[in-house]
């Protein structure tokens, strides 16, 4: 067998759940460590190698200052894989892009605190560096990760399904949630997670991104049929895919604005702002 490829994991703005999912995969598939040599995995090891061929990047890029680190990784790695919705789509992080950055900074950290927290429009890493493959999901599906890694080791392009979740949902013989009046984005979301959310009774939230043929108009009609307001539907369309919606411009299938409105006033939280003097 040829030398094991050296693999490194990196995290940017994320919850690190995808890396944890890989740790979980090791519970049942410890043999993975025989296929690759892990040289960097901050969540599990102290050792750090800078010589790697495959880089898995978790998390969105949300700071200008992170771009350099991303470029360094790109220079070193032969293959860069976006790991999980944050890296792949921008994910939940991009919900904040609805407002100007000062708006969210002030809201969370107050007038004085905002300057201390560097941030800019959250984006998928493909917006900063070239990405060779993506493993979607929030979190990733551990078996999809394994299969895609195996494909890469075979020298193949890790291809994702282009069809919607409903396919997998039907094969599992789930009762269709949309038929039961519960909102589910399965019809427009890329399959590959084995329809885990509908299987557990909760509608798909679109964490794997849209299929190429997503029929947003009919999807909206279906959700309206459940009595959902347009605001609610927009919120669903943008939970993981805010960045995509933002960058679809006028074609974005949303009824409200997804990008900052000029000169919006800066709000402060009516909940405790960290500037307050001791309450005691």
């Amino acid at each position, binding site marked *: 067998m040829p030398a094991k490829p050296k693999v490194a994991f990196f995290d940017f703005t994320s919850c690190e*759940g995808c890396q944890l999912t890989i740790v979980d995969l090791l519970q049942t598939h410890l043999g993975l460590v025989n296929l690759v040599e892990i040289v960097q995995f901050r*969540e599990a*090891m102290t050792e750090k190698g800078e010589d790697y061929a495959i880089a898995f990047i978790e998390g969105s890029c949300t*700071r200008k200052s992170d771009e350099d680190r991303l470029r360094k990784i790109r220079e070193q790695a032969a293959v860069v894989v976006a790991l999980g919705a944050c890296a792949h789509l921008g994910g939940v*992080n991009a919900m904040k892009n609805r407002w100007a950055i000062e708006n969210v900074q002030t809201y969370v950290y107050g007038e004085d605190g905002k300057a201390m927290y560097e*941030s800019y429009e959250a984006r998928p890493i493909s917006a900063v560096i070239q990405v060779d493959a993506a493993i979607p999901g929030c979190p990733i599906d551990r078996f999809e990760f394994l299969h895609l890694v195996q494909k890469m080791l075979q020298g193949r392009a890790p291809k994702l399904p282009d069809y919607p979740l409903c396919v997998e949902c039907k094969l599992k013989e789930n009762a269709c949630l949309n038929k039961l009046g519960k909102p589910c984005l399965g019809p427009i979301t890329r399959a590959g997670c084995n329809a885990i959310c509908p299987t557990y009774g*909760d509608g798909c939230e679109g964490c794997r991104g849209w299929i190429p043929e997503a029929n947003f108009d009919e999807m909206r009609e279906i959700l309206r049929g459940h009595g959902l307001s347009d605001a609610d539907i927009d919120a669903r369309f943008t*939970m993981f895919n805010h960045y995509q919606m933002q960058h679809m411009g006028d074609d974005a299938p949303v009824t409200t604005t997804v990008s900052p409105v000029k000169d919006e006033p800066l709000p402060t939280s009516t909940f405790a702002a960290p500037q307050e003097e001791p309450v005691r």
Partner: protein
Amino acid sequence: MTENIRVNVHHVTRVEGHGNIVVDVRDGTIEKCELQIVETPRFFEAMLRGRPYNQASHITSRICGICAIGHATASLRATETALGVELSEQTRLLRKLAFHGEMLDSHILHTYMLVAPDFLNVGSVLPLAVSHPEVVQRALRMKKFSGDLCQVIVGRHTHPIAMTVGGFTHFPSRQELESLREQAEALLADVDATVELFGTLPWPTFERETEFVALVQDDEYGFIDGVIGSTDGPRVPISDYRTVTNERLSAHSTAKHAAFNRDSYMVGALARFNLKHEHLHPRAAAAADHFGLEPVCHKPYMNSAAQVVEIVHCVDDVIMLIDTLLERGVEPEAPAPVTLKPGARGVGSCDVPRGILFHEYQIDENGLIEEANCIIPTGQNLGNVDLDLRALVPTLLTETEDQITLKLEMLVRAYDPCISCSTHFLNVEFVGK
């Protein structure tokens, strides 16, 4: 004797999230000694604005991959309190079960994969797999159980699916529960072996008196709801959490610290042990004895020992909870109804692996979130870590920088800082300030 030391441990590995320790000692005096957080801010509170209330738990579980069930639970409790939701007994039982799954997963990960390598003198879990394969295999077995438990109840551990406002969207079958119970019984041997292993470790004896804060319940060593308790005495209702987390300017930096009755307090397993050890299951109490853990224990390194005690407790509690559920039978039930009204406010709290966590929301009459606040355990601990570091460093000056670095890292690791919980932090110190 090292007169001048500079320790700069970047990206403390093996903690969830990013942290840097900076120590600067000149001529025996501490110039700087702090745990810096380099995690990018994520602005969850801001993002929640305008979102439907039933999205909140799904969004906030994404704050942290390891405390996902904890965040979802705190979030649901906040929403439910705001919207006047009464939970059924079945919902409470199932939530506890899921919560235990996460508690076990997190504690096993932390103690076995992040803490044990330090004590066994191997760099990390990968070399540990070579030097102590049986230890790693046991850890993976135990972790698999906690993963299976989460899967059966809420679909998955990281970002639970079936927990929703007012109840659940999926229910475990009798068969699944029976099989989990069997697995839990079978796990007891591993649990005993765990206590044995951690009993042999040379826990550092460093000690510093401080205040401990945890959720306390009347009749159990619980993790969800209750009142906020302190080893300094007071009991505070959850709705008044702000008087506890109380953010103020600290003496030695411009950043803010959480402080209740003293300069800082500690949350997490040790705090829970100190506050409610009398409700531990007997096997867990015996484990505490075995480790020489006695309330009130002021040795921060012993937080990891307290986590092992909680592992023992949770496995027993899982068996008990499953027995209860099997006896009552689990029936699919619709989530409890909500009442929408203008300006509804609610606080939810639970004691996640790393300590007490608060979510607070204000929800409008259309069910859209107007305001949100999340206070995470690591943020509350940071002030205490700094004070520990300042007390610890002078005792280490005779050691080599490598040894110092390791001890400091181990201290930070003992707190199990889940820094990726990057909602806003209460305490951040910046180099140069």
